[in-house]
């Protein structure tokens, strides 16, 4: 279960450049040299176990920031977040991949960055290699991979740790059609095990197919929360 009550997220943005280094030194810790900019304001949201929620909204409306907050990367400026269960964020696919290293080394590295122990990684390794369908290519340096192969590797790593809560930021359309279907099946499998999924996508059909609830975010606040069709209508009207 996920519960956000009265959550604000503000970024501290440094605007004045080096000139203000003196001000900065004088005001250390008070943040007065940083300008506060609200990205999300007054967010109240409750998501229950097993729900699949689509987040809709224009570019820059705060969807990714919300996912980052749920995954613990951003600490909210105000408000309370209550999350029960393990969270797996699929945010930037392929972030952290090191092109000079081979597939196996990259699996170890990325899993470690996600906080897994050596033993957990060892247990997941065969599953990741199999799901990626890379075969012998797991022993190649990643710089020799095609774009599709790189995405398959990255997705397989991200998806293998069956989480309670899965956060997906526009990463389902990787690889060829065969692999895309496989990814969707995997997400559906995770969902059928009772996991909660929060899904950001600009492909409305995808949201329609997978989600049973949608939330529209506009200019940093929740504008509408309801069925996918209802919210979708409103979402499309934003662009008219």
């Amino acid at each position, binding site marked *: 279960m996920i519960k956000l009550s009265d959550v604000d997220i503000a*970024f*501290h*943005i*440094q605007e004045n*450049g*080096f000139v203000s*280094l003196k001000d*900065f030194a004088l005001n*250390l*810790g008070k*943040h007065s040299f*940083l300008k506060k*900019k609200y990205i999300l304001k007054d967010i109240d949201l409750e998501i229950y176990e097993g729900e699949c929620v689509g987040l809709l909204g224009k570019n820059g409306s705060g969807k990714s920031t919300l996912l*980052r907050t749920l*995954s*613990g*990367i*951003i*600490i909210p400026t105000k408000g309370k977040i209550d999350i029960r269960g393990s*969270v797996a*964020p699929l*945010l*930037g696919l392929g*972030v*952290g991949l*090191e092109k*000079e*290293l081979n597939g196996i*080394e990259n699996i*170890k*590295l990325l899993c*470690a*960055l*996600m*906080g*897994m*122990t*050596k033993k*957990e*990684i060892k247990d997941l390794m065969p599953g990741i290699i199999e799901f990626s369908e890379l075969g012998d290519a797991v022993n190649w340096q990643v710089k020799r991979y095609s774009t599709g192969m790189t995405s398959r590797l990255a997705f397989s790593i991200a998806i293998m740790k069956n989480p309670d809560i899965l956060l997906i930021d526009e990463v389902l359309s990787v690889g060829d059609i065969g692999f895309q279907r496989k990814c969707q099946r995997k997400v559906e499998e995770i969902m059928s095990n009772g996991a909660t999924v929060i899904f950001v996508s600009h492909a409305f059909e995808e949201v329609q197919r997978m989600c049973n609830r949608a939330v529209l975010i506009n200019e940093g606040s929740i504008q509408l929360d309801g069925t996918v069709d209802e919210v979708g209508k409103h979402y499309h009207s934003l662009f008219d």
Partner: protein
Amino acid sequence: MSLTSITNKGFTNAVVSLAVKTLKVRYKNSLIGIFWSMLNPLLFLVILYIVFSQFAKGSDASLNYPLYALSGLIFWNFISASILQVLTSFIDNGDILKSVNLDPIAFPFASMLAAIFNLFLSFIPFLAILYFLDYQLSWSILAVIPYVLITSVFVTGLGMLLGTLNVYFRDIQLLWTTLMPAFFYFTPIAYPPSLIPEKFQWLIKINPFYFFIDAVHQIFHDGEFPSMENSMVMIGLAVGCYLLGYFVFMRLRKGFISNI
């Protein structure tokens, strides 16, 4: 958050994995690998020997100049390179910082760890060369281990302080790369401190790097354990710098995502 994650197995594995990655990538495409980190001080040693050895010998006749300068150079390279790596670690790993839930303090730790690995790997060829420069192996070499630990705490603190500020003011990085060569001459690395006129001696002692290099000279050139006084100053500097760096990092980390 940062303190609890240090005891966390997953966090430790992330730090070690990042450090191993750095080393693997650095030497993956080079033939002589680790020997590169030896080549730079050796090249410098030749030049410095030609230019400075007469001066140095003049002020201290018992000085084994090549041994003195080379040991200083190797550890100066370690200190200056690792400060820069820790300093840029937040920015270099910006993408990871934005999309993986990993305490950002992992990045300075990993950079420091990679630098320590690198130093110890270069130790084998280093000791062989020192042998040819008449280095007398003594128990004092054991002091290298606590020395590297204390120095690393100092470097991590200083690097974290500068690195955190660098997220907001990229000028810090440029300022530091400009200052480092100046510190190379300001610190008695390749010349004995006695070469400095009496009236400027106090200037040397306000330079924190002086103490860290002096300890190296004591260990390798004099074959002695670093003096009690020097050790206390190093420990004080290390603890002070680390606390300051950690404090500034904790205060300013929440702005990292929007400023990287």
